[in-house]
């Protein structure tokens, strides 16, 4: 056999091998059936712990359609690739996960592979849940098995071609998925490690606070650097920049207040983060929230890049319109000097969420107003009214510009076009 033929043959064999491995990875199949599931003998303690962990993972937020039965799925999740319909995870045998085993549940959490061997779309945050321990996964499973079963068939996804082909997920997984339980960092305290475990794992904070690219992936090197939340028109600020939601110079108390109470002396949660606090974080123990705060505060902070003053120049006419609008509509609650009445009305002076590079959230707040979530520690929050029907785009842009540059704030001006774009995007 000539050398060339041997080389060709070797290449063929190698290709076949790669194809076989690829096929296996794409279609891992069902797990061998395991001995009877132990969940029916789960103790009250385990089920309670599972419920707590399910709260930490905020399962209910996506797996419950508005006004429908908990965990029965059916909620439409808009993605840039089409609508996903979240599945039923109640223990109904026919339409839920009633026939799953704890092994199968762990494989789904850990590897993003469903019971029948199909690959999950990464709207399910398995890239975060892979950090969850087997023990915690078993407890969550025991809890889900204990909730009332709901008979509700899953609705098929409505993804556009080519995203409706799950085999493409192999590429996504190769690029963006690193499987593996959380590994403690022995250089850090037990508290820091607990916080890291919750933030990186069940909390799946990276789903929003790490920018998503055109392939729906987020790269690890950009972890927690912030980004627009697809289809929601809110900006999830960077957790690694003190110019955004970096918490490097916050007190631990302010961080735990923000996460668990929903309001703090430094800022308040609205929009998607209000949902997270409402459904999940308010239920976490003081110890766990403090651990998260310790970890978040210690995240490495990028340099504080203050933009040159030339980019912060505002025309006197805009500044004057902004000041007039502010004094008329905003000063009553936020104070003439932007000090607010924290924690009920957040300060605007020296507030990172006002000055960060993306003005989207500030413009949205002026247009639509907002209430922080009603939580166990703040059941009756103070709210802000919408101004979209009172202020024109020029006034919205001027007043947002004003609060971004007044009182020593180091933000940049926003344009009338930016205000107009958000007004058109948001239903009125």
């Amino acid at each position, binding site marked *: 056999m000539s050398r060339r033929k041997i080389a060709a043959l070797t290449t063929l064999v190698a290709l076949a091998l790669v194809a076989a491995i690829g096929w296996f990875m794409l279609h891992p199949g069902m797990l061998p059936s395991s001995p009877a599931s132990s969940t029916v003998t789960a103790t009250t303690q385990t089920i309670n712990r599972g419920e707590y962990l399910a709260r930490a993972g905020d399962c209910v937020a996506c797996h419950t359609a508005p006004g429908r039965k908990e965990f029965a799925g059916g909620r439409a999740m808009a993605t840039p690739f089409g609508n996903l319909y979240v599945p039923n995870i109640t223990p109904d045998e026919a339409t839920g996960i009633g026939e799953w085993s704890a092994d199968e549940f762990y494989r789904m959490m850990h590897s993003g592979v469903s019971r029948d061997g199909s690959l999950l779309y990464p709207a399910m945050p398995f890239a975060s849940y892979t950090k969850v321990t087997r023990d915690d996964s078993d407890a969550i499973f025991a809890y889900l098995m204990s909730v009332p079963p709901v008979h509700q068939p899953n609705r098929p996804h409505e993804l556009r071609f080519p995203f409706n082909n799950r085999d493409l997920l192999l590429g996504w997984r190769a690029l963006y998925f690193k499987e593996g339980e959380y590994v403690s960092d022995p250089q850090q305290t037990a508290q820091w490690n607990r916080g890291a475990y919750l933030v990186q794992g069940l909390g799946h904070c990276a789903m929003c606070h790490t920018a998503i690219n055109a392939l729906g992936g987020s790269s690890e090197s950009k972890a927690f650097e912030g980004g627009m939340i697809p289809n929601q028109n809110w900006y999830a600020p960077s957790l690694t920049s003190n110019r955004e939601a970096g918490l490097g110079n916050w007190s631990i108390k302010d961080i735990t207040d923000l996460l668990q109470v929903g309001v703090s002396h430094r800022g308040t949660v609205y929009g998607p983060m209000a*949902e997270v606090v409402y459904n999940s974080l308010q239920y976490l123990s003081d110890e766990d929230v403090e651990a998260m705060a310790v970890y978040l505060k210690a995240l490495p902070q990028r340099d504080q890049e203050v933009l040159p003053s030339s980019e912060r120049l505002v025309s006197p006419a805009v500044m004057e319109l902004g000041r007039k609008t502010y004094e008329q509509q905003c000063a*009553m*609650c936020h104070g003439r000097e932007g000090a607010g009445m924290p924690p009920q009305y957040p300060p605007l002076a020296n507030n990172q969420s006002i000055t960060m590079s993306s003005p989207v959230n500030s413009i949205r707040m002026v247009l639509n107003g907002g*209430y922080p979530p009603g939580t166990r520690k703040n059941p009756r929050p*103070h709210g802000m009214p919408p101004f979209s029907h009172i202020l024109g785009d020029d006034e919205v842009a001027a007043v947002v510009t004003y609060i971004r540059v007044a009182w020593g704030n180091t933000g940049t001006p926003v344009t009338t076009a930016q205000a107009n774009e958000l007004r058109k995007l948001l239903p009125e």
Partner: protein
Amino acid sequence: MHRVCRKLLRETILAPVIAIAMLAPVRAQAPTVPSFEKLDSMEARVQGCVTCHGQSGQGTDNGYFPRIAGKPARYLYNQLVAFRDKTREYPPMNYLVAYLPDSYLQDIAEHFAQLRPAFAAETTPMTDKAALARGEAIATVGDPGKLIPACVTCHGTGLTGMEPGIPGLVGLRSAYIVAQLTRWRVGDRHAVEPDCMKRIATRLSEADIAAVAGWLSSRRPPRDPSPESANLVRMPLACGSQGQG
């Protein structure tokens, strides 16, 4: 005067005076500008409502935002829960109350239910005499031929509503009434089953809706705009929101 005394006087008397003086121009502004007296109060908490519904829930010049003051607390609570759970769809409201618990929505409902602000001045009434007459007929005697009961049977002779779940209609603008009846008719708005308003709205034509909305919006409030007591009368149709089901 002694220096300490002067200082005391300045701090105890002058400071509040200055504070009030600073607040006064703000409070004197339009009823839709945020304003309150005490931070730890329902008045301050519901500032999120005022640019659309007015400081006391009296409504605003914008005809689409309804007066909510004085409506029965149960009715307001039902609406707030429906907005939160998206069984009543109106995106700005769905967004605002999305993460508020039942107990707080109850407090908000009770807050506005007990307010009795003045009614807005009369707006330009509908000029179409025939339509006004048709509207008055529907509202006061109904249309037996179309199985439409009179509005006043359930919404009260003074159109101020009925405890616990039927809203007052007096003080609402035509645009809002037309929009709500139309939404009911096409199935966008629902109430607790049995949904009496759905049965009624589907029996009304578009012209009927315009006529009855025009007439209702021309009504002036009675001296006491409070809702009538619960179920003093037997209602011609069963309504889930009155606890009949």
